[in-house]
């Protein structure tokens, strides 16, 4: 649904986006992460045919961003970071205006306006001026505008920024609901927890280059090593040197708990429990130690800075997302 190949954008001498290759299929959500000025917004603008790529190509819903700009724009719903609403219009008028811009018939516009305003809890404010809306309400209205023409491709720049937790949850739930077999979504966000929650795949962009991209779990495995597990015990500290199987490594231990790491939890975890039970050590529970996307992100950025903006990834990474190697 979204495919780019060596997409680059230069402003004068400044290379804003450098040979970005991405693929997001229908039904997938990709979180595009990166520091400010990394090239996220420029990439998004190229994907909506607002900016012309300096080199490379991109196809959106089958349309070429260079030669079929109108088709691209009709297929994309974009939620920009600054939603840019018209304060003197009512919510209803605003959505209807964009419906006209997207050449939707009047009866469909009426139906869609009602439907979306209700969905985002703005039904009672349909006739109120947007200038009187709170930040969260504006963001919800901007989201409604993005979805108004039911586009197969959604691009969202900071979809929950400036929203209160309740509104942010509503929007996140909406994005969950938007995942469908025929829709591809890219979310640009600084909120890594949100990215982890919403996206199955991530791409980290740094100084215009994609430094790492792929399935979240596989990237975690690659950057942070094997998954870690914590075992809660019914006794105090123990000597576990001979208890753990050879493929599990003890990484931390305390009063009534220990943590270990293994490449093969499916086979090793039952063996660990078995060993503890055999030694009559009471086990309260075994759980995976949560490793946040933040760790992955910081690790990737640090590695990129150390390695001169490039990370070599092994061949076991998913093939649907291109990995950018050093030039």
């Amino acid at each position: 649904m979204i495919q780019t190949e060596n997409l680059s954008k230069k402003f004068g001498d400044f290379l804003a986006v450098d040979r970005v290759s991405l693929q997001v299929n229908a039904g997938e959500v990709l979180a595009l992460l990166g520091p400010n000025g990394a090239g996220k917004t420029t990439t998004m603008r190229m994907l909506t045919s607002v900016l012309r790529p300096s080199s490379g190509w991109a196809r959106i819903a089958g349309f070429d961003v260079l030669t079929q700009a109108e088709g691209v724009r009709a297929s994309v719903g974009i939620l920009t970071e600054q939603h840019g609403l018209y304060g003197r219009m009512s919510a209803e008028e605003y959505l209807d205006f964009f419906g006209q811009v997207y050449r939707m018939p009047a009866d469909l516009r009426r139906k869609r306006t009602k439907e979306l305003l209700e969905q985002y809890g703005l039904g009672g404010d349909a006739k109120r001026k947007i200038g009187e809306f709170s930040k969260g309400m504006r963001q919800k209205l901007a989201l409604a505008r993005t979805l108004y023409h039911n586009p197969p491709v959604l691009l969202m720049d900071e979809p929950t920024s400036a929203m209160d937790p309740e509104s942010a949850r509503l929007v996140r739930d909406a994005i969950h609901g938007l995942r469908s077999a025929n829709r591809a979504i890219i979310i640009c966000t600084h909120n890594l927890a949100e990215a982890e929650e919403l996206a199955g795949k991530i791409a980290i962009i740094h100084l215009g280059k994609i430094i790492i991209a792929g399935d979240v779990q596989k990237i975690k495995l690659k950057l942070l090593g094997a998954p870690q597990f914590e075992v809660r015990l019914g006794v105090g500290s123990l000597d576990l040197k001979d208890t753990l199987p050879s493929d599990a490594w003890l990484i931390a231990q305390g009063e009534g708990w220990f943590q270990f790491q293994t490449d093969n939890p499916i086979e090793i975890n039952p063996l660990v429990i078995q060993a503890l039970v055999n030694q009559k050590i009471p086990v309260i529970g075994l759980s995976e130690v949560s490793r946040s996307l933040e760790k992955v992100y910081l690790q990737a950025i640090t590695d990129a800075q150390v390695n001169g903006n490039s990370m070599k990834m092994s061949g076991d990474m998913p093939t649907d997302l291109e990995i950018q190697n050093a030039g």
Partner: protein
Amino acid sequence: MLDNFRPALIITRRELRDQQRDWRIILPVLMLTLLFPFLANFTTQRILGFVEKYGANIIAERFIPFLFMIVGFFPITISLVIALESFAGETERRSIEPLLSSPLTDTQLYLGKLLASVLFPLAAAYLGMSVYLIGIYRSTSWRAEPMFLVMIGLLTAVQALVMVSGAVVISTQTTSVRAANLLASFIIIPMALLIQAESVMMLWADYQILWWVILALVILAVLLVRMGITHFNRENLLGREIDSLNLRWMWHVFRDEFKGEARTVGEWLRWEIPHSVKRMSIPIVWMIILLTAGTYLGAVLVKSIGITPSFFSLESLNSINTKVLDQFRQFGYFETSGVFTIWWHNLRAIAIAILLGSFTLGVAGAIILMLPMIIIGFFTGLVAQTGFHPLTILTAVVMPHGLLEIPALILAGASILQVGASLVTPHRKQTIGEGLVSSLAECAKITLALVVPLCLGAAILEVFFSPLVLVRLLGLE
């Protein structure tokens, strides 16, 4: 065609509705539409009372149509504010971004906004003019000629269009309303001067000249609209921070264009200059047409201003001083210092033409360079009345220095026109700034390599040989 235009009207409708909800626009428009015409009426009646008492009825006669024009002009000044707000304001607030991501084309968006900026103030202007006319008719029974009404109505509309299209060009070069307002003086000052000139014409009752003003404004509006369509595009609006001035980058672009691929001065002269001249082939053709037209215009002027053969005769020239060549000597001819005087004079004129041309899309520059040809044409027309063949006179006036000076004029003019064209023609590979700097570099290249040496050669010929040819051909000795 109409289907392509329809989406533009969606934008127009939205913006018009928005304007009607903005008290900052509504209030001044209402005041200028409803209060100002009454004030103008009141003023006219005072003046009529004054001239009735003390005479000079002509002042009253001229004042009524003059105020009619002014009553129309005031509301359309609001169009400038609306346009700056519509174009620069939307860019600054980023509310334009969802529109840029929509299937609307750049031209549809531009036309929609242009119409919205012009329509409301223009409607207000016509309403104000109607209120004024009704008031004047009721108080003085004055009735305007239908053609006069059409003329002032057109003048008002085209002035609004020039202001709005100029505002769009300004807005595309800024990222904030504040910066756009600062740049708006480039529109306000010329418009204020134009209104003063129009006022003079109205008070002299030179209404026919106003048709020429309308024609000139229509041409200007067409150029500005074309320039606006070229510059108002997604790439320019969101592609870069255009408020920042990067002198270093400008210098690099200028230097690269000026130097081209050449590594030595010889290569530059052998390869780069011929390539530059080749690139300017279309402006060169335009300059030849303009200079020819200038010469013809000069010749036609002799008849149109009614100069009769008795007005000028070569005998009268001889009677002043039989030694014409001595007259030339008094002006520095036949001396080396005269060469530098003429050379410097020509270079200064070309420099002024380049400078003015850069601000006026090349138009003022081309007009300045046409002036010598208009004078030559005029002189030819004048002397031709004494019985000489025009070609003989033309040869006497322009030979032999014209062999070098006219190509210099053509090249200088062509490079100035190219600077103007760089602003009104879209560049696929270059930004507007790059295009302008590159064309200025090309202009500098042509000036330095060809125009300056040609002018020097022409000055030498003009000082030492041209007077001899003139005297010989016209038999002035």
